[in-house]
């Protein structure tokens, strides 16, 4: 054992001393022969005989040397090194080929690595500083009869925490925003309301100060402490080393800074970087809707769990479901029909992981397509080269190289190409790491955070891709050497342009595949583009043009409710008086924005809900003229006026779907509805509109007057033909006239709001579009390569045709028709594949059939144009054939 290891080491060492050892070997053998000759001379032989006898008794000199070398080094490695050296030399000799091939592979592998890194960084390990993310699951509620998720209430959360045994931790992280004023700068900042065990459960420890202590998440407004992020400390607090114990106003409540987090920790909300954290006890300060820690009906938190090691998702879910069942039985008023569910992190329903999941899934498929196209391209290039190298291969076979050895050589060359491509690809991926965030529109000055993560898993996957690529690339020419027959190899055979000749079918096949793959991508891009257009042109049920949306942050400025009401009234009067303003109003929630509407169980006279159903309905708190300002038509009744204030009778406006559900066949006007224990009179019925998402189906919804359900955090809506830019300065003036310390949020149109809500579709379209374009380009290059090679090989035939009277236009047609025939084959194949695959776009498609003829038609047109462009240059070159020369050569 030790000896064989020793032998291996010696052999390995020999690899690095080859030249010296080779000299030694020569010297030793020479001295042997000389001594042998000396001896023979002394025996009386003639010098010639002495030499012959010495060589004879030594045995074959070169064979012995070869045996010796095999014993000395590691022949496997040596031939590989040889192959590598030779391969590199071959690549250097044909720089055009090499650069094109490596570029294709860089694009192919780079696209894969980039998408892998996004999947890794956004879906699988989204929280880089957090330990053992594989044990984390997302926790959210479900409501019977409704799809999707709901938030959960604090008492339910506490009960889970108390009654479950399979978990290391339950922790809460609820995203919220505030305006942070430090010094003279005010900025919108995102933060999280968390349970006290948050940092411990994540395994993230503040680098200075402390996290939250047990109990700090209990008691109404009892613990005004905050932990700030490294970025915030570094930036806004200028790296102040004395920061611990200092105070900061957050939503006008003085908080003590107790710690800051390590660099690279961005909280636990995919898509956004959190800047500060407060314990749940301070929830009322940041959340609307009052104190909720003791209200089981108030569902507002988003949570995660950490499983005990070895516990499976399924076991955990069983335990949670059991507890949820018990809660349902114990608290039927609030929990009837309510479940609690665990999601893997990559399917987290309440952050951007869920929104990006379908896009990234599609992207994974798309980049595989792009890689295949790139491989086909490089395969084609290699094939062309293998024709050119047929003589070399033949000679090597003739002087005794084994076919296995040749194949190894070809694989090594493939490996060099794909390894260089992989390096380029990883660099590309590294540059594209943060690119995803660029595709999302900026919002209100808060930066989105969607980093790709290039860790060993991504590297391993990329290496795997690279190896597969190598196999594919090496296979093509290796397949070709199989067919070399020594005797016939020196006969020159030129490939005809029309028939294609014997081996050209491989290359044509590759081009057909390329064309078909890029056709599929074009169809996909077309479908997504149409969906996006449909989404954008679908009426959300309110005016998107001519309505502006902004807000004034009264909460963080420390306004109490009466002062805020006065301010809102005064501001409305001033805004309405501005030139160009038709109407203006306040409302708590902007349609299609991130955030949740208030919701309530409703009771209606004469309506008996099915036993399993809890009639929870969402509503919005809106001001006078809300319906006029947003352009939501009223079917009957009236909208709210200033008279609907806290002293007046409680009223509500319902939408058509709600009316149809609770008062079927009747006019709801004048009916009563009970909301959070208070009876309200229905005074109007509005047309249905979109509330949370453009893609949602009509659902029951109602409105209550803002004055009767007051919220300080209300948005301001203005109907005016003026642009946001023009309005901004005027608005700012009016706000500052009332209070110089108030900050105004950005002013955007409601169309902008709609566009932001559809950004996942936008991102999918952009990415598929970019990659589809790339695929088209690669396919066109492939087609161009095949056609120009065919033309260059078919010079003799072209010359002959010319000599026999074919005109330039005949030749042009000849070449173009062959190129178009390949394209047609590819398109037909691609169409068949696309018909099967586009269904997978699933949730990304909106009001578009996966077999939409327009998408298929435009993909066909684009493909044909690209093919014509790609074939035109070779065709034109064919017409320039000089018949005399072609025939002479």
């Amino acid at each position: 054992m030790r000896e064989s290891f020793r032998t291996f080491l010696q052999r390995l060492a020999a690899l690095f001393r080859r030249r010296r050892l080779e000299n030694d070997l020569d010297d030793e053998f020479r001295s042997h022969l000389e001594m042998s000759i000396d001896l023979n001379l002394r025996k009386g032989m003639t010098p010639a005989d002495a030499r012959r006898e010495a060589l004879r008794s030594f045995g074959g000199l070169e064979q012995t040397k070869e045996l010796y070398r095999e014993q000395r080094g590691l022949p496997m490695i040596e031939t590989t090194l040889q192959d590598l050296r030779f391969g590199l030399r071959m690549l250097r000799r044909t720089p055009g080929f090499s650069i094109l091939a490596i570029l294709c592979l860089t694009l192919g592998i780079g696209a894969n690595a980039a998408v892998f890194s996004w999947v890794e960084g956004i879906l699988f390990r989204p929280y880089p500083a957090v330990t053992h993310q594989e044990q984390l699951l997302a926790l959210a509620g479900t409501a019977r009869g409704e799809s999707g998720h709901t938030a959960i209430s604090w008492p339910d959360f506490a009960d889970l925490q108390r009654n479950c045994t399979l978990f290391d931790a339950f922790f809460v992280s609820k995203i919220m925003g505030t305006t942070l004023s430090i010094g003279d700068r005010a900025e919108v900042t995102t933060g999280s309301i968390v349970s006290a065990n948050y940092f411990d459960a994540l395994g993230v420890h503040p680098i200075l100060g402390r996290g939250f202590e047990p109990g700090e998440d209990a008691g109404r407004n009892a613990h005004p402490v905050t932990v700030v992020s490294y970025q915030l400390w570094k930036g806004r607090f200028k790296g102040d080393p004395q920061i611990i114990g200092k105070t900061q106003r957050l939503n006008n409540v003085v908080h003590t800074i107790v710690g800051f987090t390590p660099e690279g920790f961005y909280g636990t909300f995919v898509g956004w970087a959190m800047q500060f954290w407060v314990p749940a006890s301070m929830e009322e300060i940041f959340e609307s809707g009052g104190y909720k820690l003791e209200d089981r009906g108030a569902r507002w938190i988003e949570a995660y769990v950490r499983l005990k090691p070895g516990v499976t998702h399924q076991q955990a879910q069983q335990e949670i479901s059991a507890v949820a069942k018990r809660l349902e039985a114990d608290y039927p008023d609030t929990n009837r029909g309510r479940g609690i569910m665990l999601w893997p992190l990559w399917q987290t329903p309440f952050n951007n992981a869920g929104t990006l999941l379908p896009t990234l899934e599609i992207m994974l498929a798309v980049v595989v397509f792009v890689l295949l196209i790139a491989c086909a391209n490089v395969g084609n290039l290699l094939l062309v080269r293998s024709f050119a190298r047929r003589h070399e291969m033949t000679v090597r076979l003739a002087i005794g190289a084994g076919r296995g050895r040749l194949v190894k050589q070809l694989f090594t060359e493939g490996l060099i190409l794909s390894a260089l491509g992989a390096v380029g690809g990883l660099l590309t991926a590294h540059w594209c790491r943060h690119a995803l965030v660029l595709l999302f529109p900026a919002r209100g000055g808060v930066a989105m955070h969607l980093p790709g993560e290039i860790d060993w898993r991504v590297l391993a996957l990329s290496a795997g891709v690279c190896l597969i690529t190598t196999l594919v690339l090496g296979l093509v020419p290796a397949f070709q050497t199989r067919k070399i027959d020594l005797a016939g190899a020196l006969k020159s055979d030129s490939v005809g342009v029309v028939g294609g000749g014997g081996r050209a079918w491989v290359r044509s096949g590759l081009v057909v595949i390329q064309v078909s793959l890029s056709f599929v991508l074009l169809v996909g891009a077309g479908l997504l583009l149409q969906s996006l257009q449909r989404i954008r042109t679908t009426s959300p049920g309110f005016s998107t043009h001519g309505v502006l949306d902004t807000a004034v942050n009264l909460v963080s400025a420390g306004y109490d409710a009466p002062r805020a009401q006065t301010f809102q009234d005064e501001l409305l009067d001033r805004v309405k008086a501005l030139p160009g303003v038709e109407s203006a109003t306040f409302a708590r929630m902007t349609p299609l924005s991130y955030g949740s509407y208030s919701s309530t169980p409703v009771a209606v006279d004469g309506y008996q809900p099915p036993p399993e159903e809890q009639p929870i309905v969402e509503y919005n708190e809106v001001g006078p003229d809300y319906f006029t300002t947003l352009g939501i038509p009223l079917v009957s009744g009236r909208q709210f006026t200033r008279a609907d204030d806290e002293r007046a009778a409680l009223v509500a406006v319902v939408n058509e779907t709600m009316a149809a559900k609770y008062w079927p066949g009747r006019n709801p006007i004048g009916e009563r509805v009970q909301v959070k224990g208070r009876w309200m009179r229905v005074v109007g019925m509005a047309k249905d509109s979109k509330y949370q998402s453009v893609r949602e189906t009509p659902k029951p919804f109602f409105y209550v007057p803002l004055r009767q359900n007051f919220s300080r955090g209300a948005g301001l809506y203005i109907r005016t033909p003026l642009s946001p830019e023009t309005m901004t300065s005027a608005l700012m003036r009016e706000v500052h006239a009332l209070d110089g310390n108030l900050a105004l949020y950005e002013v955007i149109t409601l169309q902008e709001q709609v566009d932001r809500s559809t950004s996942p579709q936008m991102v999918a379209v952009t990415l598929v579009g970019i990659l589809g374009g790339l695929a088209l380009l690669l396919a066109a290059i492939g087609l161009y390569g095949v056609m120009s090679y065919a033309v260059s090989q078919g010079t003799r035939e072209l010359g002959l045709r010319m000599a026999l009277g074919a005109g330039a236009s005949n030749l042009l047609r000849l070449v173009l028709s062959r190129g178009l025939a390949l394209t047609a084959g590819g398109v037909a194949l691609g169409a068949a594949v696309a018909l099967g695959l586009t269904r997978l776009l699933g949730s990304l498609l909106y009001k578009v059939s996966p077999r939409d003829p327009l998408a298929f038609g435009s993909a066909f047109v684009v493909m044909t144009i690209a093919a014509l462009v790609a074939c035109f240059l070779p065709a034109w070159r064919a017409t320039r054939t000089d018949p005399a020369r072609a025939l002479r050569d």
Partner: protein
Amino acid sequence: MPSPKSEVLQGTLDLLVLKTLATMGPMHGFGIALRIQQLSKDLLQLNQGTLYPALLRHEQRGWITSKWGISENNRKAKFYSLTRAGRKQLEEEAESWDRMSTMINRVLKAT
């Protein structure tokens, strides 16, 4: 080419080389070849060259070491000498050779 003389088995050659070095002290390859041929009275047909891969194998295993030196008639030559590990190896191989030949003899005489 069929030969009337015995072909050398690899294991035998290893043993012969080690034994030669043990009795004669440091020697160069040519010397070892001559010595083996003399001792076997030219009955062993040996391509002298095949000695060298065997020597290299021994050296890689640490049984012998080599050093450049000057031969008796003033030629530069590589001299091989036995190491302690080589000596031990020789003893083991000689022993197993004995056992083997005794056994074979016994089998041959038994019939």
